[in-house]
């Protein structure tokens, strides 16, 4: 199996990455009140270990993981727990959250700046434990708990570890700026994970539009002493280049089987941000309570990349960056292709927040929905080789089983079909509806 030039399909939406200007990371001041939703990862929500009135410091564990797929949650400010109540959640609409009022002292639980010398001699189990304690989840957006993913079953060894620095979503530059700023640390984290997994290769995949990052990583790897198997892999600029299955196909030529996981083809993919968080957790013993967030979009006056505490509300970030004097239409968490539109700016930054976009009405134009003219563009752009128009038509007519038989459940919801459709058909919405109905009918049958 060999690496490919690229995968089949995909689209080229306008990048708009230049909006952010220079790619330095600025520190965003800790919020007055931090809203920390208990549900930060896939799986079950974590269980609070603090109660109203408790004093916490920056990095104090405030909620423990509950169940196998779940993650820890730490306070992002020092102060007092004032409530645990339902509040807006960027993914779920509304969910329980721990509200912490800052005492403005920003006192850390321990010193997070010095590197632990002993990190190199830790065993795999110890590293995993550190990662689990730090509450690390996949920071690309899927928010799958990292310790679960990094601990594959014994019969599925990982040969290739891929670091996903594609950042194919338009507008977003948070990973890019992180790569430029923290290349050394990322490489350290990468080496650590590679060693832990006993992987043969570690590929750092970066889209070609980030030439400076590619050059930087290449240079750093040459300087590194034990850079065996470490390699930078430039990717063609295309959406969804960063999608796990497509990335694996491009880099290794292997296709993850339908319904399978990357470990079925001996590959593990982690986002660049996650690798950095692992570095921090293991070398600095720092839990995940802040992350890089791109605040951008044509509705924002001064777009930038911020290092933001989890729990900061979108409102603070948006107000701080300033609203442009344009007709504003949407507030989105994440990229414009897969991000989630928000109904209120009261939602807090969570671990999954890679960007906050304020789109004007000319960027996020809906156009009149016309009848499908069967142009086949959705078929040719679908990276999963599906026929989105057919699937959505069948879902619309209630033929969920037929839709399933032509690949309904293989869709990864990248939205390429929806982007390209000249008729303005909301293909992805129908596909999502179909998935929902299918799962529901399966539950009913049981």
């Amino acid at each position: 199996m060999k690496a490919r030039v690229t995968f089949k399909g995909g689209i080229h939406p306008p990048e708009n990455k230049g909006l952010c200007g220079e790619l330095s990371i600025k520190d965003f001041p800790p919020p007055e009140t931090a809203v920390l939703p208990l549900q930060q990862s896939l799986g079950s929500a974590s269980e609070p270990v603090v109660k109203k009135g408790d004093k916490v410091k920056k990095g104090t564990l405030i909620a423990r993981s509950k169940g196998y797929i779940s993650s820890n949650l730490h306070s992002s400010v020092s102060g007092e727990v004032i409530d645990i109540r339902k509040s807006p959640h960027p993914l779920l609409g509304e969910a329980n959250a721990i509200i912490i009022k800052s005492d403005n002292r920003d006192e850390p639980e321990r010193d997070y700046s010095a590197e632990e010398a002993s990190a190199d001699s830790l065993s795999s189990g110890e590293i995993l434990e550190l990662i689990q304690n730090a509450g690390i989840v996949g920071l690309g957006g899927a928010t799958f708990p990292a310790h679960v993913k990094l601990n594959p079953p014994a019969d599925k060894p990982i040969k290739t570890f891929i670091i996903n620095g594609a950042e194919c979503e338009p507008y977003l530059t948070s990973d890019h700026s992180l790569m430029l700023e923290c290349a050394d640390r990322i490489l350290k984290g990468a080496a650590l994970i590679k060693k832990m997994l006993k992987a043969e290769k570690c590929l750092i995949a970066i889209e070609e539009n980030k030439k400076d990052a590619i050059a930087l990583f290449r240079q750093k790897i040459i300087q590194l002493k034990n850079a065996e198997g470490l390699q930078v892999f430039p990717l063609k600029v295309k959406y969804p280049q960063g999608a796990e299955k497509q990335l694996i196909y491009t880099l290794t030529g292997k296709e993850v089987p339908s319904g399978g996981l990357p470990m079925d083809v001996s590959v593990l993919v982690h986002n660049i941000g996650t690798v950095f968080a692992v570095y921090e957790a293991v070398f600095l013993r720092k839990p995940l309570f802040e992350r890089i967030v791109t605040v951008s979009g044509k509705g924002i006056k001064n777009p930038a990349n911020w290092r933001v505490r989890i729990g900061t509300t979108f409102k603070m970030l948006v107000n701080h960056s300033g609203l442009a004097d344009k007709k504003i239409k949407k507030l989105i968490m994440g990229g414009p292709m897969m991000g989630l539109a928000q109904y209120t700016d009261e939602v807090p930054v969570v671990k999954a927040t890679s960007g906050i976009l304020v789109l004007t009405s000319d960027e996020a134009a809906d156009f009149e929905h016309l009848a499908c003219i069967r142009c086949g563009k959705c078929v040719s752009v679908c990276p999963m080789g599906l026929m989105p128009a057919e699937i959505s038509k069948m879902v619309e007519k209630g033929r969920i089983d037929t839709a399933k038989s032509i690949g309904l459940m293989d869709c990864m919801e990248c939205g390429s079909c929806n982007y390209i459709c000249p008729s303005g058909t909301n293909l992805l919405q129908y596909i999502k509806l179909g998935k929902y109905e299918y799962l529901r009918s399966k539950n009913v049958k049981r």
Partner: protein
Amino acid sequence: MGIEVIIYSTGVLLVLGAGFGIALAVSSKFLSVEEDPRIKKISDILPNINCGACGFAGCSSYAEAIVTKKEKVNLCMPGGEKTSKKIAGLMGIAPDSIEKKVALIHCCGGGIGKKKYDYSGVKDCRVINMVAGGSVECDYGCLMGYACLRSCPVHAIEKNENLMPYVIRDKCVGCGRCVTTCPRNLIELAEYGKKVHILCSSHDRGAEVIKVCKVGCIGCGKCVQACPFNAIRIENNLAVIDYSKCRVCGKCVDVCPVKVIYDWRKDFTVPGKQQKSGKKNEL
């Protein structure tokens, strides 16, 4: 034409007929397949709208199940008692009685409740429910995406003037498709005879309900006191009627301060009708 023509033709036809008759008779011996004629008869009796309420793939497979697996004969909701009696007569067994059930939407405020945000996209409540937890402030309110309306095989659900879906009780066949379709589980099958219902599903506390909806149950308990048969209880901030005790007296209807209890005998064919909402706010 002489006599010989007639003899010839009769002869030829006789020979032909006899030949094929024998061939057919022989082959039918070898190729015969046993099939119960009752299956076809039963599927003729069934309404053939293939709604699936019986739990089978369609009317014909239900018919097959009745004959081959001795399935119960009263599973067909659309056909009702008449059908089950007919089938029972055919099968030679006593029919089980079935109560006619109709769908009931436990919300009357969607059109009047407050909007959380402007939604654009596919107008289907199942989709809307996926976006930031639904587009109306009330977490238990109808989203007015009309998935139930479209799922109804007999077109028994329509929109009223507040654009809320409502069930035309006499058209409804009780197949239960809308029940499984509703993303917020607002619809249930209720007995046709019990004509007083509480049309709200909100488990929020009273104060929160008032904030978001004019016609939401606030759990005040007045109906509980008014009921002479102890048929109403407050369950998790929501009044619930126990239909086994309810005698349809209608006393609870008048005491309800937010008017979420409806009596269908009083011509409330359209829930929410008496609420004069100024503007029509469709999604």
